[in-house]
Structure formats: C-alpha cells, structure tokens
C-alpha cells in the first residue's frame, strides 16, 4: 500500500506526462458464471496504467461483468462464480488475503445511472474521505474544492455546496459522481456506460473530463457508443458473447480490425 501511494504521488509530481506505461491489470483466463449462465469465457487482457481503455460490444456481451470483476462489485450478486486471475500491480484481487474495502478504495467506479446520495453536494464528495477517516473540516473543504475542480464542476456549484445534489442536472450529477470517486484518490476509475443516461452536451463534458483523467488515473470505460470509444480511448477491447474477440490500440481496432466480427460490429452490421 505504501508503495502504491508513493506511485500516485510520484505520478502527480511528474505532471501530466504519462510516463508510467506499465501494466495496471493483468487479467488471465477470467471466467464468470451467474448460476448456470456463463457470462465471461477465459478472458485475457492487459490494461495499461495512465491510459483510457474502452470496452465495446453489444448488450449482454460481458463487458460490464468484466468491469465489475476489477473492483469485485460482482461479489454482491448471489450465485456468481469467478475463476482465473485478476492481477493488479501483480497482486491477485481475488486472493483471499485481499481486503475488498481496500481494493475498492484503489479502484473507484462510476455507474450508468448518476447516483448521487440524497445529501448535499459537499457531503457527497466528502462521503469517501469521511469513510476513510478524514474528519477535519478544512481538510475536507480542500478535498471537495480540488476534486470538484478536477471534475470541471466547481464553477457551477461553488455557491451551492450545501444544497441537495439531487437538484443538479443529470450531467452535473454524473460529474459529481466522478468527483466523489476522485475524492477517495483511487488509482483506477471504472466507468460503466457513464453517458448512456445523458444528453449529447453533457456527454461531451464527461468525455472532455475523461481525457484529462488519464493524466492521473487508469481509466476503463464500458460504452455502447463506438464513437465515444474512438474519441476517448487509447486501447479498445471488443467483447462478443462473453469472449474478448479483439484487443489493441484504438486506431488499429477501428481502422484495421483483425477479426471479421469486430469489423462487422464497428461497421454497424449488427449490435
């Protein structure tokens, strides 16, 4: 843990240059069953740090299931069975010695539906830091201002931090949720179709935000929107029926897909 936080600080200190082109997640033979249904079939993938990895594919192809394995949010579901390895910085997150709470602090998540807590904007952002032991008000105020600025929301909400987060628009709520995740200082941010409930304008703001996030975080995003994947990611993975069909540089996947099925999907022939 000490090593990990040093890494974060080091990264922040060296500024935006994504110098740490190393592997964040090394996933090997990841297979997931929900009861009798096999949602993922022996997926191998390497997610690099400080870049945006997009996962595309038709509904029910397993991309959300894959995402939820990275911070073990699947644990909550009854009857789920996970096989294979998910190595994060070389450590298997499904190892029995791994503390799930600790893992989720390091791997934050943004959901499809904006889900701010029914409390004030301030309390939403301060929720995570408070959980993890930050109590002093000046410190919390610093964190809230810094993360809201990072999430490009500060100017819109700085005069109403004490008002309910539910009064914000959908796009603002989603940016608030991203700020809420950043306030915990994770190393990775997972996004599960973060824009599918938003209008084009709000989507644009979130995409801008994603581009800036990659300077400090490893971002993995699941999206239905292929243009979004093409615009915002450096790596793209294509899932179909629980299998990872193709994975590579985004440009290559979109312009010269190696697999016929990827091409069919990208050209809009199905899905």
């Amino acid at each position, binding site marked *: 843990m000490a090593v990990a936080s040093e890494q974060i600080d080091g990264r922040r200190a060296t500024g935006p240059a994504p110098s740490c082109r190393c592997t964040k997640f090394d996933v090997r033979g990841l297979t997931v069953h929900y009861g009798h249904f096999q949602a993922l079939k022996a997926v191998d993938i390497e997610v690099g740090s400080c870049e945006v990895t997009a996962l595309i594919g038709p509904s029910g192809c397993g991309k959300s299931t894959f995402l939820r394995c990275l911070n073990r949010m699947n644990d909550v579901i009854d009857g789920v069975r996970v096989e294979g390895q998910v190595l994060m910085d070389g450590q298997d997150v499904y190892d029995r010695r791994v503390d799930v709470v600790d893992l989720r*602090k390091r791997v934050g998540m943004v959901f499809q539906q904006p889900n701010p807590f029914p409390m004030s904007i301030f309390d939403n952002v301060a929720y995570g830091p408070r959980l993890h032991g930050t109590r002093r008000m000046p410190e919390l105020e610093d964190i809230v201002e810094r993360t809201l600025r990072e999430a490009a929301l500060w100017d819109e909400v700085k005069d109403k931090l004490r008002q309910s987060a539910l009064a914000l628009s959908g796009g603002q709520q989603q940016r608030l949720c991203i700020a809420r995740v950043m306030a*915990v200082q994770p190393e990775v941010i997972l996004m599960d179709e973060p824009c599918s409930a938003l209008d084009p304008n709000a989507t644009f703001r979130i995409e801008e935000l994603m581009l800036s996030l990659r300077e400090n975080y490893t971002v993995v995003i699941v999206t239905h929107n292929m243009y979004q994947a093409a615009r915002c990611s450096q790596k793209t993975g294509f899932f179909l029926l629980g299998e990872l069909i193709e994975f590579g540089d985004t440009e290559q996947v979109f312009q010269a897909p190696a697999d016929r099925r990827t091409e069919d999907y990208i050209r809009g022939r199905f899905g």
Partner: protein
Amino acid sequence: MNANLPPGTGWVAAQSGRRARRAQTIAFAALGASALAIVVPAVLFVGFVVVRGAPAINWEFLTTMPRDNMRAGGIMPVIIGSLYLVAVTMAMAAPVGVLAAVYLSEYARKGPLVRAIRIAILNLAGVPSIVYGLFGMGLFVMVIIPEVLRLTGRDGESGKSACLLAAAATMAVLVLPLVVATTEEALRQVPQGLRAASLALGATRWQTIWRIVLPNALPGILTGLMLAVGRAAGETAPILLTGAFFWMSHLPKPTEALLQPFMALPFHLFTISTQMPDAPERLRWGTAFVLIVLVVGANSAGIALRSWLRRRKKV
C-alpha cells in the same frame, strides 16, 4: 342509415366510441362511489365519538382517579397505564424489529431459511390477538415473570406475576411482525444504486447501512413504528390475560410499575361498557375519545415526522 358511408365503417366507429365513453362513465362512477364508501364511515365514526365523547372531557376527567366504583371521577390511571404500556412495548419491539429487518433484507443470504422466516412473520401477523394473550399468559405470566421474581427474592408478593412487563412483552411479540414487515418494505424502497455507490467507494456493508440505507429508510421505518404504537395502544385481548386490571385504588410508584398490574384504555372501555351497565354513558364515550385521540395523535405525529424528514432531504 346513411347510404354515403361504406357499409358499417362510420357507424361502427361511432358505436365503439360511444361504448368506450359509457364504460368510462360507469368506471368513474364506481371508483368515486368506492372512495365515498371509505370516507363516509370514517367521518361518521370519528364524528360520533367526538360528539359523544368531547363533552365528557375536562381537566378532572383527565387527571383524577376513578370514584364510586368507576361510576364517577376521572381516568387518569387508565391513561397513564396505556402510555406506559405503549412506551415499554415499543422499547422492546422497535430495536428488535428494526434490527431483525435490517438483518433479513441487508445481510442474510437469500435462501429457503430467509424465505421461511419471512413466511413465519407474515403468518404471525395474522394470528388473532387473543391467542397472543393466551401465549403471553402461558409464557410470561406463568413462567418467566415468576422466575424473575424468585431470582430477585420477591416471590413473597403473590399474584403479581400478571404485570405491565408481561403485558408489554406480549404486546411486543404481537407488533413485531408489523415492525419487521414495514421496516423491510422501507429498506426495499432505498435504491440499489445508492448501496452500490457507497460500496464502490470502499464502504463496508455496515457503513453503507448506517450512513446511507437507514437514513433514507427512516421515514418509512417511523411510519411503521407509529402504526405499531396505534396497535399497541388499541389492542385489548393480549393485555386482558397478562396484566391489565379491572380497577386499581392507586397508581404504583413509577419504579415499581413494571412489575405491577395496570389499567389501560381499551380494557377500561370494555369493562365499563359490558361489566357495569349502570356506568354513566359519558364516561364510556369520554374514554373512547381519549383512546382515539391517542391513536390518531400517534399516527399524525408519524406522518408529520415523515413529511418533515422527506422535505429536509430534498432541499
């Protein structure tokens, strides 16, 4: 018959439109009548009790002991007894019921055992209250309280095992299913997305329940508790066999009241209505009025509290 129209079409359209409109009129009339059928008895009922009971209410009625074998005087010990009973009942039922509901819906793995428990709770809610009375007499009055008295060296005082504590315990068992069911429902109303968001931020399950789930379920939980208060204040059969007394010459000291019998509004109403034909009418309606005010008051307080909490959350 209009010869310009193709055979059937216009006529059929008009016909079906007319039929739909008529069906709608009938449906609205039936719905309105049903709504009225609920309102009218409620208004009549409350109006009746108020008109008959309100004149009996005065300071003396509320604050003095009964006199002349309950044919005159006030009902102070009866009110105190009911309030005490409700308080002790809720002190037992509320924490146990809420915690049990949290366990069932937030922690327990969904499976046959949890399903069985839920069905058992539903069935318990349907058991007639006199059966609870008998159960309370068999368990609390005849076994547990005598044992407690023996252990505390008080078994010399005979006949005191029917007491407020036994009655409140019985009443707590009776309202528990209600508390569990309403609390579970309130917990279900909290969106799953909030739980997921909290867990994904690195909260433990308990932190999620304490900081997110319970505060958001609080209005619903309070509503359920207030329903339970109304039930505990109004039920007669369970206390009949476990500690309610016909008449008491004086109020016991508050410190001893738990292990003493007590008077309560519904039971008092029953005795002066059926066992004492010559008791003045106004005493009965006065007692009924106080009981209604207590129950309606508890429910209104619950509703007011709930809407206040909801408003505060939205702002």
